[in-house]
């Protein structure tokens, strides 16, 4: 299995990387962890003429708390950096848990947060929990930068709003006052299996009621989606079994899954219902995990 030929660059700064991508044009791709990109190149799905490696941009690997922005995760943090992060362990163990369910240890040491988001695949494990927690992303290009909600990034299966040459640099999770969150995934094996379906939730409970909830589904539509029906239903409801079961039904109704090798549409709808109910229950009872 041979990789096609390409030129390789490893710029020292983000600005240099953006300038280089602009200069090289649409044939160039960003290389972060490489676990998706090199796979796509080996299987003939992509043949970039140049790779611009981000490996020298060490500051983009940090995970930290920043006044006014909340928890900031650099796009080059590996999936295992998330699992081991003391910052996330203290604030959002639900993100550590989501990362821990991904792929295998070998892949988690290479694959990055930025890659998992920028690839835009509907079965990715990090977008659901990050969207549930209201994450925003910082996109940087040669002509400037912009910040937008993560959920606005995905436009279709493997399609995003990222312009050619634009780099997803950071994810920020503003303090949303959530009292609990959780991502649950169902895969065919515990290791090395993509999600047949997944559900992430974030809840704000107060005075014995669910004041606000976000419900996000993966592998249930061409993009990761929120369930507006489940979210609206949960507002100001008591967190009892009937309410959570009904929320699961509404999430199922909002899902638009397809049949694939990994699971039928009917099975995925079932999973959307069950995983939503269970994720809500865990987030309400156990907080962020």
């Amino acid at each position, binding site marked *: 299995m041979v990789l096609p030929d390409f030129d390789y660059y*490893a710029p020292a700064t983000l600005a240099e990387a953006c300038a280089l991508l602009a200069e090289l044009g649409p044939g160039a791709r960003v290389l972060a962890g490489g676990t998706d990109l090199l796979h796509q190149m080996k299987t003939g799905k992509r043949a970039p003429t140049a790779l611009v490696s981000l490996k020298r941009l060490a500051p983009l690997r940090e995970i930290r708390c920043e006044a006014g922005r909340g928890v900031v995760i650099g796009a080059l943090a590996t999936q295992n950096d998330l699992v081991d992060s003391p910052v996330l362990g203290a604030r959002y163990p639900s993100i550590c848990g989501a990362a821990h369910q991904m792929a295998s240890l070998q892949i988690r040491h290479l694959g990055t947060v930025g890659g998992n988001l920028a690839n835009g695949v509907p079965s990715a494990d990090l977008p659901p929990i990050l969207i549930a927690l209201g994450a925003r992303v910082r996109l940087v290009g040669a002509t400037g930068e912009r910040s937008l909600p993560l959920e606005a990034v995905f436009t279709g299966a493997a399609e995003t709003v990222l312009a050619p040459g634009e780099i997803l640099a950071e994810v920020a999770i503003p303090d949303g006052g959530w009292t609990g969150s959780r991502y649950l995934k169902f895969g065919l094996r515990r290791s090395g299996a993509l999600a047949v379906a997944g559900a992430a939730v974030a809840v704000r409970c107060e005075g014995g009621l669910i004041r606000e909830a976000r419900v996000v589904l993966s592998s249930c539509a061409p993009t990761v989606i929120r369930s507006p029906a489940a979210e609206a239903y949960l507002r100001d409801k008591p967190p009892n079994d009937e309410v959570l079961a009904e929320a699961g039904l509404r999430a199922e109704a909002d899902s638009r899954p397809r049949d694939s090798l990994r699971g039928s549409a009917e099975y995925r709808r079932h999973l959307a219902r069950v995983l939503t109910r269970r994720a809500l229950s865990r987030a309400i009872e156990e907080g962020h995990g």
Partner: protein
Amino acid sequence: METLTDPQGVKRYLVTVTVNGDRHTAVVKANLTLTNLLRDHLDLTGTKKGCELGDCGSCTVLLDGKPVDSCLVLAVEADGREVTTIEGVAQGGRLDALQESFVNHAAVQCGYCTPGMILSAKALLTRNPHPTEAEIRGAIGGNLCRCTGYVHIVEAVRAVAEGRVAPEDEGPGPWIRR
């Protein structure tokens, strides 16, 4: 990193990688994987090629101490970093306790997954000397054994974690004569 362009316009890159404690410098094309750098340029063929897509773990090496699938790492990306392959696990001509234990527990069948299994287990025990069985299974979750010899492999790792590696202590039976 120094870049060299030949008369045909093909670019090559000067990479320096420390493998098993030795510094190696090689001139490589950008599309060379770390697996192929190790096997074809450095003749370290203990690192195996299986799926070449990051699914099977037979090409596992330690990159700066962490297990990675070397088929998904470009040689140019490993520039300046430290790699440990299966050839670097035995020290001073003596097998590592994990290697002894794999032999004693008949945890080697066809042997193809063994280098990757040993390196994944080595990384686990370095980080967590006394793992639970679930942690052992999690650590080798990215290493496939197509002989399906997982029970003996897990037992071999557990024996090292519990400080018993001699054949008479435990093990499946006297299948391997030493």
